[in-house]
């Protein structure tokens, strides 16, 4: 576009540089605004990080500038990594998160396809009903659910979470996928059907690639829910080898009214790191996938 304009008469270059200048302004403006958001968002995490690098004495003393670290120490991190329990918590969390994500995504995508495309009597009620499960807060649901988990013999076994977490993620993921699938023209699947593709193949080769941003977003959601969930592990897991990261940190480092603040903050940092790394890469992947494959119309 700019190339063509370059050949034009005198007014054109002025218009072009105005447009480019406007675009540059938009770009720099975006960066500036983003920077403001980033700074605001990161104030508490910075504080958590700073506190995790302070000695217990510094934290207890409460003098001086709390935003600065007077004596940097990595002792809190070292102690956490040396804690035999801690590694176990981490592994448990990772394992459960991986299983939760896989199970949730498979169930959600299939259910979303079934509900949005393969309508059947009562699908509307089913779809809404599934979402209504969020209306019973887990701070209430855990009590009767305890009985169910007990019957399955899974109390104090970390695998009970692999069953429970999907129930937290599936309704939302399903509806997100319904939203994405809904915007895919029906002609696409009819063509595929006529060509002889089965439902599964249609789902796999047409719907999933086109709805990939939604799938990635839903995956991120499922992972975060699984990683950060607190109440169910607190209620159903008591042995150290079964606990997950969130409740392990809280339970080991908060005893009675004694809080090991430095280590708790270090635990926060360690708990936050893997998701951020994974997401940063995951979202890259879908952008790449999107620009490469997904052409619509």
């Amino acid at each position, binding site marked *: 576009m700019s190339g063509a304009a370059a050949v034009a008469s005198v007014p054109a270059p002025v218009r072009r540089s105005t447009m480019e200048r406007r675009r540059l302004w938009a770009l720099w403006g*975006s960066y500036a605004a*983003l920077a403001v*958001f*980033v700074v605001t*968002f990161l104030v*508490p*995490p910075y*504080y*958590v990080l700073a506190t995790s690098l302070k000695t217990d004495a510094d934290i207890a003393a*409460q003098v001086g500038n709390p935003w600065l670290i007077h004596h940097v120490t990595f002792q809190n991190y070292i102690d956490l990594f040396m804690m035999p329990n801690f590694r176990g918590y981490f592994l448990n969390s990772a394992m459960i998160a991986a299983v939760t994500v896989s199970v949730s995504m498979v169930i*959600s995508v*299939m259910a979303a396809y*079934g509900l949005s495309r*393969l*309508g*059947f009597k009562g*699908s*509307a009620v089913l*779809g809404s009903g*599934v979402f209504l499960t*969020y*209306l*019973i*807060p887990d701070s*209430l*649901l855990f*009590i*009767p659910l305890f009985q*169910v988990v007990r019957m399955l013999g899974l109390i104090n076994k970390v695998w009970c979470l692999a069953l429970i977490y999907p*129930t937290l993620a*599936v309704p939302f993921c*399903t509806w997100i996928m319904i*939203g*994405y699938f*809904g*915007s*895919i023209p*029906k002609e696409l699947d*009819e063509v595929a059907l006529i060509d002889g593709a089965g439902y599964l193949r249609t789902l796999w080769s047409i719907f999933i690639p086109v709805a990939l941003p*939604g799938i990635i*977003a839903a995956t*991120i*959601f499922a992972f*975060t829910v699984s990683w*950060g969930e607190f*109440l169910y592990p607190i209620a159903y897991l008591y042995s150290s080898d079964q606990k997950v990261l*969130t409740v392990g940190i*809280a339970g080991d480092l908060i005893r009675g009214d004694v809080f090991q603040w430095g280590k*708790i*903050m270090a635990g926060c940092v360690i*708990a*936050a790191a893997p998701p*951020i*790394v994974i*997401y*940063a890469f995951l*979202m890259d992947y*879908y*952008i790449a996938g999107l620009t490469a494959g997904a052409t619509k*119309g």
Partner: protein
Amino acid sequence: MADGSPVAADPPSRVRRRRSGMRRLLQRRSTVGVLFCLPMIVLIGGLVLYPACYALYLAMLNRRMTQFVGLGNFAFLLQRQTFRLVIFQSCLFAVSAVLLKAFFGFILAHLMSNIPSGRQRIWRGLLLVPWVIPLALSTLGWWWLFDPSYSAFNYVLQDLGFAPIPWLGVAWPARLCMITVNVWFGTSFFMIMYLAALKSVPEQLYEAASIDGAGTFQKMFYITVPMIRNIISVTVLYSLIVTFSNFDIVRILTNGGPEDKTHVFATYAFQVGIQSGDIPLGASVSLFMFPLLAVFAYFVLRNVTRRGKEMAL
């Protein structure tokens, strides 16, 4: 209907074969549909439906759980001054927090999509931080920032010459703190959802609109919002439901104080229910918003399916 009405009149044999094949396929469609939904039905039915029904039943028992009292618990609650405060505060937090999160998330998603994709990664990573730290732990960090005796925020204020603010000690500042922490935590979620949704809006639409001379805001209102309205609806609905039942933020920061001015359903339910040995009352508090939210959810989801059907035609 759209697909199924076969061609009229006498079809040649090849078409007849195709037609019966189609019909068989279509006949199987609904069963296939059920099959695809089966895992979800089993999972939710087994692990949520039964406990949920029991929870609803619990909310209608008396304290000693010997008698069925129907809606008696709810009537009792409405007479309590503290509970009316809880209703007000929960609605205040949930509605304002969700509106703010949706608003900021939307802005962030747009800002993010303005930036070349290569550079996005680091900004995305940074902005995701609040959401990925488990809330129960990050709230402890916030507690330190608002700490009664040595707030890090007050340190800065005092350095600049202002008086220290009793963040959690006075009703309205405490409420603002709750909303702030909630918004801080949840905006990233909205951003992620919107960003993914924005990615799925075809570029061609924007280009076509630009050629027609549409400005930024017009593009936003006439292209973006309608295209991603489904995602917006589902995300807002989910966030509203979940924010109404938020527990950790209030419990860790103020435990409902000062003078019950920050209590929400979940924390109040915990105090009168589990801590005081009156599970049915706690259940009633937890389920108070159920009817209203259920109706709201029904309408939102119905619109999503309807729009989905419309768009696909």
